[in-house]
C-alpha cells in the first residue's frame, strides 16, 4: 500500500470523500450565484441569508405545520424563491440600469436585515432539525463510516447542478435566457416577455440557495449566522471559477471542497484560508477565473 506524506490511503480516501460532500454545498450555492450574475449581472450578497432562511423555513414547516423533510425539500426552496421574486420585483429591478455596486450594496443590506430579524426572533444558538428517518444511520465503506444522509447530499447536489447546467446551456428555454441577457430589446421584439424571464431567473437562483439550505439543516445547526459564515467562501469559489460561468461554478465548488478537505489533514489551522489563497493566486494569474470567458 502506498502512503502519502505519512497519511495512510484509507484516511486520505475518507478525507477526499468528505471534501466532496462539502464541495456539494459550495457547488449548489455558487451555481445559484453564477446563474444570477451570469444572466442578471447582479452580485447577490443576500444569497447566504436566503440559504439560512430556507433552513429556517424547513424548521418552521416541521415545528408549526408538522410538514417533514421531504415536502420541505420542495416547499422551502419554492417559498424562498417566491420571496426572491418579491425582492426582484420591488427593489432589484429598479437598479438594473445602474452600476453593479448598487445591486451589491442593496443585497448586502437586505442580508443584514434578514439575519437581524431571524436573530431577534429565534436567537443565535440554533434550532434542532433531525435527519429524516429514511436517511439516518450509515454504512461502513471499509475506510470510513459514511452517513447515509451525506451520501444523499452528494447525489442530490450533483443532480441539481447538472440539471441546471443542462437547462441553461442545452435547452431552448436556456437559449432564450442567454439571449435575453445579451440583448433584451431584440429578444423582447420577438415577443418574449423579458422582465418575466429575468424575474423567474432570480427566483430560480434563490431557490437553489434554498435547496442548499434545506440540505444543510439536518447536519449544521440551523442558526441565523449559518449563511454569513458560508457566503464569503462561496463568493471566492465563484471568483475562482469565473464570474457567471455555470459549469465553472459547479466544478470549482467540488474541486475546492476537495482542496479544503486535504488541507484539514495536512494543516488544519490553514483550512479556513486555503480557498482565499487560491483565489488570490488565480486572480493574479488568470483574472477572468479558471473557466471565465471574459475578464
Amino acid at each position: 500500500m502506498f502512503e502519502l506524506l505519512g497519511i495512510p490511503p484509507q484516511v486520505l480516501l475518507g478525507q477526499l470523500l468528505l471534501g466532496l460532500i462539502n464541495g456539494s454545498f459550495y457547488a449548489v450555492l455558487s451555481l445559484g450565484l453564477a446563474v444570477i450574475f451570469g444572466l442578471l449581472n447582479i452580485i447577490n450578497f443576500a444569497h447566504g441569508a436566503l440559504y439560512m432562511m430556507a433552513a429556517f423555513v424547513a424548521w418552521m414547516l416541521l415545528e408549526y405545520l408538522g410538514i417533514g423533510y421531504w415536502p420541505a425539500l420542495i416547499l422551502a426552496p419554492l417559498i424562498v424563491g417566491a420571496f426572491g421574486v418579491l425582492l426582484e420585483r420591488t427593489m432589484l429591478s429598479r437598479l438594473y440600469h445602474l452600476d453593479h455596486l448598487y445591486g451589491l450594496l442593496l443585497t448586502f443590506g437586505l442580508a443584514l436585515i434578514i439575519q437581524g430579524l431571524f436573530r431577534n426572533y429565534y436567537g443565535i444558538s440554533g434550532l434542532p432539525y433531525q435527519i429524516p428517518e429514511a436517511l439516518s444511520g450509515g454504512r461502513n465503506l471499509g475506510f470510513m463510516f459514511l452517513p447515509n444522509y451525506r451520501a444523499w447530499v452528494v447525489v442530490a447536489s450533483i443532480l441539481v447542478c447538472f440539471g441546471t447546467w443542462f437547462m441553461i446551456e442545452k435547452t431552448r428555454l436556456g437559449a432564450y435566457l442567454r439571449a435575453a441577457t445579451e440583448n433584451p430589446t431584440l429578444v423582447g421584439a420577438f415577443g418574449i416577455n423579458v422582465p418575466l424571464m429575468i424575474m423567474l431567473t432570480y427566483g430560480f437562483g434563490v431557490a437553489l440557495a434554498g435547496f442548499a439550505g434545506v440540505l444543510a439543516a439536518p447536519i449544521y445547526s440551523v442558526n441565523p449566522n449559518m449563511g454569513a459564515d458560508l457566503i464569503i467562501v462561496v463568493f471566492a469559489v465563484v471568483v475562482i471559477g469565473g464570474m457567471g460561468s455555470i459549469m465553472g461554478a459547479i466544478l470549482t465548488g467540488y474541486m475546492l471542497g476537495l482542496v479544503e478537505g486535504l488541507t484539514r489533514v495536512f494543516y488544519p489551522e490553514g483550512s479556513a484560508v486555503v480557498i482565499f489563497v487560491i483565489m488570490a493566486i488565480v486572480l493574479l494569474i488568470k483574472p477572468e477565473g479558471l473557466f471565465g470567458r471574459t475578464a
Partner: protein
Amino acid sequence: MLKKLALSTAVGALAAGSALAQDIDVKLGVLNDRSGTYADLSGEGSAVATRMAVEDFGAAEKGMNVEVISADHQNKPDVGSNIARQWYDVDGVNAIVDVPTSSVALAVADITAEANGVLLDSGAGSTSLTRDQCQPTTVHWTYDTAALANGTGGAVTNAGGEKWFFLTADYAFGHSLEENTMAVVEENGGEVVGNVRHPFPSQDFSSFLLQAQGSGADVIGLANAGGDTVNAIKQASEFGITQAGQSLAALLMFVTDVHSLGTQTAQGLNLTEAFYWDQNDATREWSARFEEEMGSKPTMVHAGAYSATMAYLAAVEELGSAEDGRAVVAKMREMDIDDPLFGKVTVRGDGRAIHDMYLFEVKSPDESEGEWDLYNEISTISGEDAFLPMLDECDFSKS
C-alpha cells in the same frame, strides 16, 4: 419607659436611615456580545439580569440611584476597549458587567484598572484574568477554563476515559481550555494521544472528527464553545462516532447550547456549570422571573451577572460611594456572601470568586419532562477543588 425606649429607637433608626440615604449614584455598564455567537448565552439576558439585581437589592429604597446601560462589543477587543474608555471617561460608568470573550475581557480589565473602575466579569473563561494578567479591580465571578477542566476533565478521566484526543478552537480561549484539561487528564492518570486545532468558527467538523476517530482515543475533548461545540456534537452523532464507543466531553457548554442540540443528540454528555435553573427553589423562582422577561431560561452567565451585581451593590452601600473601584473590590473581598443563586461565595485576593461548581449529565428524551428540563446533577465540586490556587503576586488583599 418601654414606650420611650421604643420611640427613641425609632428616632435613632430614622436618623441612621437618613444618614444612609445619602444619594449614592451608581452607573453600571453591561458590555457583551449582543448579536454574534455568544448573544444568547450573554447578550440582552445579562442586561436583564443586572437590572433584576438592582431591583432585588432594593437600591431605590436604600437611597441609591443605580442606572444600567448596555452595549455590543461584537467580540472584538478594539470595539470593547473603545466603549469601555468612553464609559469610564465620559459617561461616568462605575463598573462594567459581564464581558464574555476572553480577548475582549482582558483588554477591558486593563482599562478598568487604569480608570479605577470595577470589572464584574461573568462571561469570559480565560484564567489569565486572575493570573498572569490579574488586576486589583477585576472580579471574575462565574467560571473559568480551569474549573471546567477540573469538572468535566476529571470526571470523565476517572470514569475510565483514559486516552484523550482534543478538538480545539484555534484561539486564546481554546488553547487555554485545552492546556488546562490536558493537565487534569494527566494528573488523573490519563493520556493525551493527539489534538487538532480547527479554525474559529467552523461549520464542518467531519474531517476533524474522522482524525479523532482514527487516533484510537476513548474520549474526544471539545475545547471550543457555542456553535462550534453544537456542530461538532451533531456531526459526531451523525458519523457514528459516539455509537462506535468513543465518548465526547464538551468542556464548555451552556444550557442554551444543549437546548439547541435537543436531548436526542446531547443525551449522556457530561458538562460543568456554576448554575442551573432547576437546582433549588431559589434558582427556580429567579429563573421563572427571568424567563418572563427574556422568554428563555437563564444561563450561568446571566446568573453570574445578577449575583456579581448584588455583591457589588452591597459593597458600594457599605462604603457609601462607588467612586473608588479598588476600594469597592477590596470591600467585596471582605464580605461573606450568601447568594440565592450561587450559595456561599468568597472573592479571593486575586479577584477570583470561589463557589461550588456542578457536574451535570444531559437527560435522555424519555427523562426530560419539558423543553428546558435538560440536566441531572451528578456531583458538586467544591470551590477549592474547582479553581486554581491563587498566585502570590496576584494577592491584592495584602497590599
